[in-house]
């Protein structure tokens, strides 16, 4: 008995957690999948209805706007976060003074909730309160920076706020990566006459491949799920120009009483996340097996 317990104790301890995750994550994913095939309106219904909700979804202007916005946001958010993150990491890697302090300053936005970031940037970017007003008060009468209220440009303000929040995190990842490289490699390269730029460009950054990969996965799933930032910053406006899939999903379920359609949009988001995460998990697991 004791022996059996000893052998199985880890499994017994883990079982409730596995059970809860199984039900509350995977169970509800399946439930949502099922609901997306029904004609649920104000409350969930359980008679199957086919692919009608998906057809409706892809015929909806608002959803198409949301998907466009997601592509723009993800691409820019990813590029700027990684580029700024790398640059900051390289600068901090130069054994400068007060590195600990600077690192904390750059990383600190990550500790804030997106709601706080969104609200602060909403005020900074508002043309009658923030940057534009400040410059005009200083005498630059023609200074204009009204992206937040311009429906063509508003999506880029969300990128600005998102990058401000997350670039420091990418910096931390890269800094850790750079620090894990052994000094000998850099020294050897320098003895061979490589410039600092060449050392980073040809040797260190190529070694950061796993860090790139990790940042990619983390940033992409943040951007697909992004909801709070948009709610705080623009609420999907002006008009419906900054709607994103997650905002579309909650609005459809709780404001428009279209639970089925909302479930369909949730499944589309789920598939988008899966398309990013599954190859990542696959490659990670393969690497572990290879060890």
């Amino acid at each position, binding site marked *: 008995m004791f022996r059996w317990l000893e052998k199985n104790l880890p499994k017994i301890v883990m079982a409730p957690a596995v059970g809860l995750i199984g039900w509350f994550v995977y*169970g509800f994913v399946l439930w949502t999948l099922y609901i997306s095939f029904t004609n649920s309106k104000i409350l969930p219904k359980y008679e199957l209805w086919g692919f009608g909700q998906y057809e409706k979804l892809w015929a909806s202007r608002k959803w198409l706007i949301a998907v466009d916005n997601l592509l723009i946001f993800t691409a820019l958010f990813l590029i700027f976060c990684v580029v700024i993150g790398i640059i900051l990491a390289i600068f901090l890697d130069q054994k400068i003074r007060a590195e600990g302090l600077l690192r904390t300053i750059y990383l600190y936005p990550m500790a804030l909730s997106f709601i706080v970031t969104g609200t602060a940037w909403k005020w900074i970017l508002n043309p009658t309160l923030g940057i534009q007003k400040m410059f005009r008060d200083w005498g630059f009468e023609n200074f204009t920076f009204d992206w937040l209220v311009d429906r063509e440009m508003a999506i880029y303000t969300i990128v600005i706020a998102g990058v401000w929040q997350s670039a420091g995190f990418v910096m931390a990842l890269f800094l850790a990566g750079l620090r894990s490289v052994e000094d000998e490699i850099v020294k050897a390269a320098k003895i061979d006459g490589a410039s600092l730029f060449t050392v980073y460009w040809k040797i260190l950054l190529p070694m950061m491949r796993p860090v790139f990969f990790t940042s990619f996965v983390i940033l992409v799933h943040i951007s697909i799920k992004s909801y709070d930032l948009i709610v705080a910053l623009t609420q999907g406006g002006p008009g419906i120009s900054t709607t994103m899939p997650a905002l579309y999903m909650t609005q459809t379920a709780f404001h428009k*009483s279209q639970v089925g359609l909302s479930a369909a949009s949730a499944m589309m988001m789920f598939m988008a996340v899966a398309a990013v995460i599954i190859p990542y998990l696959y490659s990670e697991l393969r690497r572990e097996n290879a060890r």
Partner: protein
Amino acid sequence: MKKLIIALITLAFTSTSSIAGPKIEVLHWWTSGGEAAALKVLKDDFAANGGEWMDMPVTGGGGDAANVALKARIVAGDPPSASQIKGPTIQEYDQEGVVAPYNIDEVAKSEGWDNLLDPMIAAIHKCENNSGPYCAAPVNIHRIDWMWANKAVFDSNGISVPTTWDELNAAAEKLQAAGIIPFAHGGQAWQDATVFEAVAMGIGGNNYYKNCYVDLKESCLRSDTTVKVFDQMRKLQGFTDEGSPGRDWNVATGMVIEGKAGFQIMGDWAKGEFTAAGKVPGKDYYCAATPSNNGYLYNVDSFIFYKSSDPDKQAGQKLLAKLMMGKNFQKVFNLYKGSIPARLDVSMDEFDKCAKTSNADIKTAGASGGLVPSFAHGMAQGNTMKAALQDIITEHFNSDMSSVDAANALADSVLANM
């Protein structure tokens, strides 16, 4: 499992009491300021009549959070006794089979609700497609088509309260020339729609409004009148300031109070902001209906009653319905809320000038066919159709879409959601 969890949570909160007597569990989002104070009147009344009140306040998002909680409770098969639901959504819940007309229709009959309410308001609260027994009780009537104007700003620019949309445009241009923001507006979808419906009723007339936004006739939505309505919206957009998109309604009201802006078009809850700032109607600010032909856009808050097999709760539902429609609660609640009583026979003596105007106008409008339900506030259409209209209106207002395109997009959006 979800059901189980919800059931357990509810059990934890409800299993402590076992005294017999009328019992009620009310899900609401009236938790702040005047609304909470008004609700306390109802709670005290309820307790004085030997009832036990189990409060279930869910705050956040102007009722969004409460709706989520409500749906979870209904899906779990354990709805509260009563909750805040209004307009056609009452019928949607009735069609789901969770509403209990058996209880409060008795009360409605013995109290004679049919004689106390305007027939149109009464119909909203009857289940089975607005003609069956009563299944909900109204607590107030908000008017949507209000214009709130800063009197000092109007006076110093020689402007009187406009009675036509052309006068309104001329007044706004005057203010603009004087360097004042004419139109205080918050560019959020529901606020755009609020202004739109006042314009639609004013420019198109009451029958146009009913054809288009109550009956959703395609020919009406595509008509030249709709184009004119969108033209006026475009003009109004030109009278807003740069910071308007995303602004909350009460911030816009603040701009009028401070004299930074001339006027705002908003329902009568805006009055609360003026009152809180110590302003007096007629002296510091004007409350006037937006130009229309005796029109009146109404928005009624109601409570709906759910099925329950517990006789104590059934007794509680009856008592609550009776008190809710009682003269005392209708008066006190609306004094706090800025709206007017749904009951027609409540004395208006203690109410302010704006509420008195509203009360007089609703009677004129009711007699002349100008009493129309607000679609922006979920009185004319269910949530799906409301959103279908709202999406196009806000897209037009925040872009350079032409009025003709907007009218057609509006019709297309309605057809797609039929």
